[in-house]
């Protein structure tokens, strides 16, 4: 009830001291500030986590110098990047070149808005939540395309083109695998999807097709975020740094942070749609709703870890194999899977507790 009280109290207090219009604006600004903070903190934390996890996979220690246990390492990196000179190529398209990082970061922020952290901690609960997420996540690629094209570097251009190909293909799988789950829920609204899962997480309710959908979602989600083994866009051993070769300083950091936030978002969607979001397992902490954030983050982080595990184990695919995987394997399986799920729902074979 504590959480509820904080948001509601703030809301009530704001509306009591100011006229309605002003209060709404102030509230929006407050929410924006809160989300920006989440963005920054989550981004920095995820970078640190990635480096730590990578180190442990690789028999290393990882960052351990700045701050206790190296916790401030990414903060120090961010400060370093802030103070670095912003360089660029001479004949770059300056306007698009400067615009590109913001494209990437704004889409990441927008997607963050509809993620339900807990029952109350949910900034923007629209009824087309899932659809919104799918739509937004495909805008991010425009930033990458712009950045790659406008920096007037052949490596960047190749990276950007690869990114375009990749995102257009994997968009389908992301959408279809989520659609498979929508067949069960019958709703696109994220809060409602979670509500339905009170009678069992969707991955249990939909059992076989849901597991397949989850696997496809994780694969294509990894591809959507351009992470290894699908990091065709950066492919450091092939393209140097890919689309952000010519970016430096904070502009580079935007791309970098956005990648990690996107990873967080993909994991958060998976946690929400397949693993019941902020719901506790078997309802063990149903009486304490403020633990919702904890459960949500726990599930998300577990999935983030899975994505990191992929990254630090697998070799990279080649660009044509990437497309083969999508069009020859994921897409047909996905289509069959939707039919299977529809049959399941029609014949009432879903498992409900």
């Amino acid at each position: 009830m504590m959480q509820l009280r904080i948001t509601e109290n703030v809301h009530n207090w704001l509306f009591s001291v100011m006229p309605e219009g002003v209060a709404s604006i102030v509230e929006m600004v407050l929410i924006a500030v809160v989300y920006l903070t989440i963005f920054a903190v989550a981004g920095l934390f995820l970078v640190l986590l990635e480096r730590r996890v990578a180190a442990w996979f690789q028999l290393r220690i990882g960052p351990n110098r700045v701050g206790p246990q190296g916790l401030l390492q990414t903060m120090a990196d961010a400060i370093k990047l802030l103070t670095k000179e912003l360089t660029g190529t001479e004949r770059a398209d300056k306007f698009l070149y400067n615009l590109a990082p913001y494209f990437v970061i704004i889409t990441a922020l927008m997607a963050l808005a509809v993620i339900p952290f807990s029952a109350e901690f949910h900034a923007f609960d629209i009824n087309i939540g899932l659809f919104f997420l799918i739509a937004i996540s495909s805008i991010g690629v425009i930033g990458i395309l712009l950045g790659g094209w406008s920096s007037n570097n052949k490596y960047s251009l190749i990276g950007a083109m690869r990114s375009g190909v990749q995102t257009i293909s994997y968009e389908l799988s992301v959408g279809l695998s989520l659609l498979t789950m929508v067949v069960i829920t019958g709703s696109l609204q994220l809060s409602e999807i979670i509500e339905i899962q009170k009678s069992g997480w969707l991955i249990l309710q939909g059992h076989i097709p849901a597991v397949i959908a989850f696997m496809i979602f994780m694969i294509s989600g990894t591809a959507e975020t351009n992470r290894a083994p699908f990091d065709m866009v950066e492919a450091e051993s092939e393209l140097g740094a890919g689309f952000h070769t010519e970016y430096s300083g904070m502009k580079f950091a935007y791309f970098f942070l956005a990648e990690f936030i996107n990873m967080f978002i993909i994991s958060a969607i998976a946690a929400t749609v397949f693993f019941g979001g902020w719901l506790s397992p078997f309802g063990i902490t149903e009486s304490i709703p403020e633990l919702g954030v904890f459960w949500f983050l726990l599930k998300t982080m577990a999935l983030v870890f899975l994505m990191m595990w992929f990254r630090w184990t697998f070799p990279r695919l080649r660009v044509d194999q990437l497309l083969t995987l999508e069009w020859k394997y994921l897409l047909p399986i996905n289509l069959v899977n939707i039919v299977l799920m529809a049959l399941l729902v029609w014949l009432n074979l879903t498992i409900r507790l």
Partner: protein
Amino acid sequence: MSYFSEIYKGIKTLLTGMSVTGKYFVTSRKGAITQQYPDNRDTLKMFDRFRGEVIMPHNEENEHRCTGCQKCEIACPNGTIEIIWDRGIDEATGKKKKKIDQFIYHLSMCTMCGLCIDVCPHDAIKWGQNFENSVYDRSTLTRVLNKPGSTLMQGVED
């Protein structure tokens, strides 16, 4: 059918790979290969034969074993060693005798090939295990190995 068996096999190999990294993820804190270098200075001991730099050992009486025969200077492929020598008068016999004035060692040119030490007939020079040779000024890498005022150890040449 081969389509599905291919998928199955593919996923299996991926999981095998993940089990390898997963095992190390769990156990790596014990088996980390990282050496935290400046912190482990106290425990870090180089092997006796480690080629860090060429040194010339002196005993307590400030005596070294170098007769100034210049074999090392000839053996060196890079001109790392320069010996400035002199003729002094041996006090015992009263004869003129070669002695070194300065044994100059350019560490910056040294490739650590070991030919000078290999060729030295009196073991006057040896390998030092110090490897922390970074300096701010390049000229400090040129060293005079014989200490000021040092003399030849008795009985080396015989």
